[in-house]
Structures are given as structure tokens and as C-alpha cells.
């Protein structure tokens, strides 16, 4: 049991509740399957840095641990990636579209159809549910920067627990490497506000959650927005060509992120009724190996204990924005690195400034994956 008895004050979460305000029981939730869509094309960090307009002198691979990332080919966009990821998750769980009650699309980018054509409305989730045969599902889009998918999980958890949804799909397709292409025209040195854009890679990810008979199973999520830092990372359409550009005050973001994450963890662990040493895997948002390592060390120092493993998935995929946690999870599942019954804690850190967690046990999930990736 957690040592600190203080009730959470920062997280918005209903994880510890067993009944609603009417006194009705809340259902349990479990993670049924995950899916992924990785573009075939690989782009190395050397290629990215050799393509910059200015001689930057930045050793990006050494700085971030990123060696390559995937980028879309013509015909692939945010929507295509999300559909592929959704179908992958459904196939693994042997589910048909009509068995999905709710579809939440969580991507930052909403490119569909023409290249770099961002659809504002109708919601992408509407087209997505048609594409996967879930025409009658409830659908809407959420946008919450790199915390998008964890926001989707947070909302879906609430709807399943209340019995509004029996099984739901949370999905994101990110054709976001355009940020990198645009930044490469402007980055001049290591302090450039667009340097973080060069770490970005494309991908799609999906997760299916469903009602569980086990109300006491380990499954909880909580999230908070530290809005005093809402303007530390901003993205806008490019003024000089298609796509977007992102401007990040990386040092401040890193500083606040690490300090706040260590504090948030106390609440998250209280919320989930866990000790840190009982967490088998921590999956932080995948930004850079150095940031992940620094955050991990601070957490270990403050807690006086450590989780068994933390996931650094950067070398192969870079920062895949809102999909990063689930790309990492999927890869580790595919490589059969989890054992049944192990606990996984995802930690979201995103511009906003968003901080959240999602914890669950892998259980029978491990049986759905082979060495097929």
C-alpha cells in the first residue's frame, strides 16, 4: 500500500471510486489489444542532419539517442495510419467493427486526402469508424498534444466504467514529420527553438479497452494540466509552405517536466494503490534518452525506490508524438518482453503542460503477440 495517505490534489481521476454518485457500481476495465502502423520508409538522424539548410554542428543522435525514425510515403497520411493501426488492434483481438461501441481519434495532425490537407471537420473519427465497419459507434476527436492518446484512454475508461460503452477504440495516426522537414530549413544551432522538431517520426497506434468482470483489476488513469506553462511549446501552420512548424522552449519544458513528474508520481501511485517498486515497467513519453534518464534518476532519488524497468524506444522510432507510449508498448509486446501479470505505468508529458499516468497489468495481453514485428 502507498506510504503517503494524503488524497490527490492535482490529478483529475476517478480511479479510486467503486460506485458513482448515485451509488451504482462502476464496471472494471481492461486493455484488450493494441495495434500499430509504421510507415515502411526509414530516415536516419544522419540524413535529417545532413539535410539542414544551415551547418548546425548539432550531434542529434548523441543528444537524443535517436538513430532513425519512420516517415510516410506518398498516399500515407494521419488518417491512413490511424485506420491501419485500428485494424491491427482489431485483428489481434479478433474483433469486428460492429463490436466497437466508441471511437476516439486523438491525433495532433488531421491530414486526410491531399498532402498536408488538415481536416477540421467533420471529425476524423467519423471517417475512421466507417473505414473499420463501426458505423454505429459513438465518435469524437480529442486534441491534447502528445498526451492525446492518454487523454483518450482517460475518457474511454470513464465511459466504460459507467457502462455507457462496452468496448472502445482509442486511436491516433500522426503524419507529423512535416515539422522536421520545415524545421530543417531554420535550425541553426543546438539552442534553436525548432530543434525538437527534428526528433519527430510518423506512426499510428491504437488501443482497445473493454469492460472487465474484475472491478478490482489494476487499471487506472489520471491527468492534470499545469496551464501556467501552456505557452512553452506552440505549433502553427507554416507561413512559407505546406505543413506546420513547432516552437519549443525545450530547456524550460524539460525543467518543469522533470520537477513536476517526480511530484505527480506520488499522486499517481496513491491513485493506483501501488508502490513504485511494484511497477514492473515505466513507459515515459519518448522525447530523448537523456531526458528520460534524467527524469528516471530524479524519481528514483525522491522515491528511494525504483521500478524494475523503464522503456527507451527512441533509437528506432524517435518521438512519435501522441502515439509514442503505445508504439513503445506494442514493440515490447511484440518482442515478448513482458511477462503475464506484470504492471505497466505510462507517464504522459506534453505541451499544455499536460502530465498524466495510465497504469494497467498486461495479463493475457501477452498471448496476443508473437515475434512478428
Amino acid at each position, binding site marked *: 500500500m502507498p506510504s503517503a495517505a494524503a488524497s490527490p490534489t*492535482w490529478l*483529475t481521476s476517478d480511479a479510486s471510486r467503486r460506485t458513482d454518485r448515485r451509488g451504482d457500481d462502476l464496471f472494471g476495465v481492461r486493455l484488450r489489444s493494441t495495434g500499430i502502423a509504421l510507415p515502411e520508409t526509414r530516415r536516419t538522424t544522419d540524413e535529417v542532419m545532413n539535410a539542414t539548410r544551415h551547418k548546425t554542428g548539432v550531434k542529434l543522435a548523441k543528444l537524443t539517442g535517436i538513430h532513425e525514425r519512420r516517415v510516410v510515403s506518398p498516399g500515407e497520411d494521419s488518417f491512413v495510419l490511424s485506420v491501419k493501426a485500428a485494424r491491427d488492434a482489431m485483428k489481434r483481438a479478433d474483433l469486428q467493427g460492429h463490436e466497437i461501441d466508441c471511437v476516439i481519434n486523438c491525433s495532433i495532425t488531421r491530414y486526410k486526402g491531399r498532402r498536408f490537407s488538415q481536416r*477540421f471537420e*467533420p471529425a476524423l473519427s467519423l*471517417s475512421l469508424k466507417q473505414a473499420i465497419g463501426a*458505423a454505429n459507434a459513438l465518435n469524437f476527436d*480529442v486534441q491534447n498534444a502528445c498526451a492525446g492518446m492518454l487523454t483518450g484512454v482517460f475518457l474511454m475508461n470513464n*465511459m466504460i466504467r459507467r457502462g455507457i460503452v462496452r468496448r472502445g477504440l482509442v486511436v491516433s495516426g500522426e503524419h507529423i514529420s512535416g515539422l522536421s522537414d520545415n524545421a530543417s530549413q531554420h535550425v541553426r544551432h543546438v539552442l534553436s527553438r525548432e530543434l525538437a522538431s527534428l526528433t519527430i517520426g510518423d506512426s499510428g497506434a491504437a488501443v482497445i479497452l473493454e469492460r472487465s468482470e474484475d472491478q478490482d483489476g489494476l487499471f487506472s488513469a489520471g491527468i492534470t494540466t499545469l496551464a501556467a506553462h501552456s505557452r512553452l511549446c506552440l505549433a502553427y501552420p507554416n507561413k*512559407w509552405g505546406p505543413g506546420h512548424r513547432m516552437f519549443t522552449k525545450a530547456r524550460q519544458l524539460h525543467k518543469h517536466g522533470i520537477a513536476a513528474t517526480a511530484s505527480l508520481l506520488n499522486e499517481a501511485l496513491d491513485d493506483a494503490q501501488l508502490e513504485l517498486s511494484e511497477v514492473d515497467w515505466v513507459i515515459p513519453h519518448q522525447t530523448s534518452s537523456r531526458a528520460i534518464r534524467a527524469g528516471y534518476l530524479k524519481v528514483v532519488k525522491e522515491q528511494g525506490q525504483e521500478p524494475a524497468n523503464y522503456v527507451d524506444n527512441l533509437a528506432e522510432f524517435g518521438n512519435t508524438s501522441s502515439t509514442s507510449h503505445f508504439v513503445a508498448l506494442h514493440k515490447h509486446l511484440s518482442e515478448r518482453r513482458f511477462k503475464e501479470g506484470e504492471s505497466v505505468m505510462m507517464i504522459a508529458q506534453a505541451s499544455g503542460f499536460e502530465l498524466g499516468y495510465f497504469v494497467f497489468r498486461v495479463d493475457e495481453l501477452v498471448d496476443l503477440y508473437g515475434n512478428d514485428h
Partner: protein
Amino acid sequence: MATIIEGVASVKAKNRLRTEGALKLSVKAGQAALERAGRGPSDVGLLVNAGLYRDDNLGEPAMAALIQEDLGIALGNLPLNGSGAFSFDLANGAVGALNSIAVVSGFLETGAIDVGLVVAGDSDPDPMFNKNIEFTNMAGAAVLGWDDSEAGFGEFIFRTFSEFEPLFEARLEWSKHAVPTPPLVPSGKNVITVTEIPGYVEQSIECAYQTAMDYLSAQGLTAADVDLLIAAHPDPRVADAVGQRMGLAWDRINHLDESSHGAHTAAPLVALESAVAKGRLLRADTALVVAAGSGITVGACLYRP
């Protein structure tokens, strides 16, 4: 026991040409709604923004985070004592605000929060270049709380009619200038293009009508049980037409004043505010809220004062 509206407000830009963007309008609407509810920023546990068209077409972070900051909600740092709040954007065209009310309602129901705030505001970020944007720069906000009496929102339903998906679409994409530009001047611009195909409004009316009738039937009610219809759509003609299609007497339909016309994602909040301001929502035993927009997507729910 259900979610109730504690306060609702809307704000209209003074000038169409860029005096007030979606952020400023949304913050003003949020402040006004909080004031009407007798609440302060520290009461809010969850903020959902359903606005779509925004200052400089901001892509990241969620607009909700900026609105949260400017409203002064949970501005401390984590290591300090205090209470937090969570905010994010929800996008579903002109129905998004009703989706947001349903989402906030879910967290009120489980007890995760005591007060939620739904905000929706739009502004045309570039009226000189964007194509076919017809909405008025407006924002709305609603403060939601939990009530232990019989009052409040009933079950929410949302239906989509995707055969009409192409009838209304908005995109942001690169558009080249018609004439060549000199060096150091961009050769084009990312512009928003809204495409509305004839028949969109008529089909919206039909889809809203069907959804309303199916919803009432599922609740064991008929149109005769509806004391007040609060229908919302970016086109103000839709509300009256849906009421007439349902066979409701004229005085059972919430009519918007002309000054409230033109809201896009804020349309459901503007309609609710209108019904509250005229005292009609309080007098109705059974109010039916219907919101329709692109997709075609329709949401419906009952509200008992």
C-alpha cells in the same frame, strides 16, 4: 440526480475583423459563465474546449490549456500545495459542445470533479484569405455541476449520418498565390476552405428530426411531451424547422434572437443561454436539447430544470 447547468454565457466579437480572437472570446465567455454560476476559477476541475477555428490556427497545445491559463485555473506548480484541473480540446464540429457536456457529465457522475466548464469559441483567423467562412466570431461557455434532486441532463445520444459527410467540410491547406511573388515573400498561404454543398441545411433538419424522434421514443416519450425544444445548428433556420417538423407549437420552440445568430461550435451553448436568459428553461418540465452539425452528426438529450 444528474448534471445541471449552473451558469451559461455567450460572447460575440465587437468587430469581425480580428479585434477579438477565439481565445479572448472563449475566456470572456468562461468568465461570464463562472460569474453567473457564482463560481471561481479554483472550483473548476475539468475544462473542455470544443472550439475549432482559432487564433493563428494554433495546432498545439490544446487551445483549452491556453484558455485555462487565461482564466486563472490551477496555475500553481505541482510541488506546491494546491488543487489541479485538467483541460483538453474535443472536436466534433458544431456538436462538439454537446459531446463535451456529456464528457464532463461523466466525470461529475463518478465524483472525479465537482464542477466542470465547457467552452466553445471560433474566430476566423484570416478573413482576408480564408474561403467561405460564414460564422460570426462568437464563444459560449457553460458551468456544469451535480445536483441531487431530479433536475438536470438525461441520457445523451449521438448519431451520425455519414452518407452526408461530404455536404460540409472544412480544411486547412496550402494555397499558392495566383501571381508570382518577389523573393522573401511567401509564394502562398495556408488557408481554411469551407465547402458547403446545397442540401446540407435540409438534410441537417431531417437528421435532427429523426434523431430527436428516435430519442424521445427510446425514452418512452413523444413530441407532445416536449415543453421546450432547444435545437442548435450553425444555420439558425434549423432550430425552427426541426420544431415544426416535430409538430411543436411555435411557443414550444426556443427561438434565437437575431443578435445570437451565427455561432458555429458555440451554437449549442448559445441556444442554451438563450433559453436560460428568457427564463424558458426553468419553466419547462421537459426540455429537449438537439445539436446538429457536419458529419452529419446529431446529439440529443433531455434537460429537466
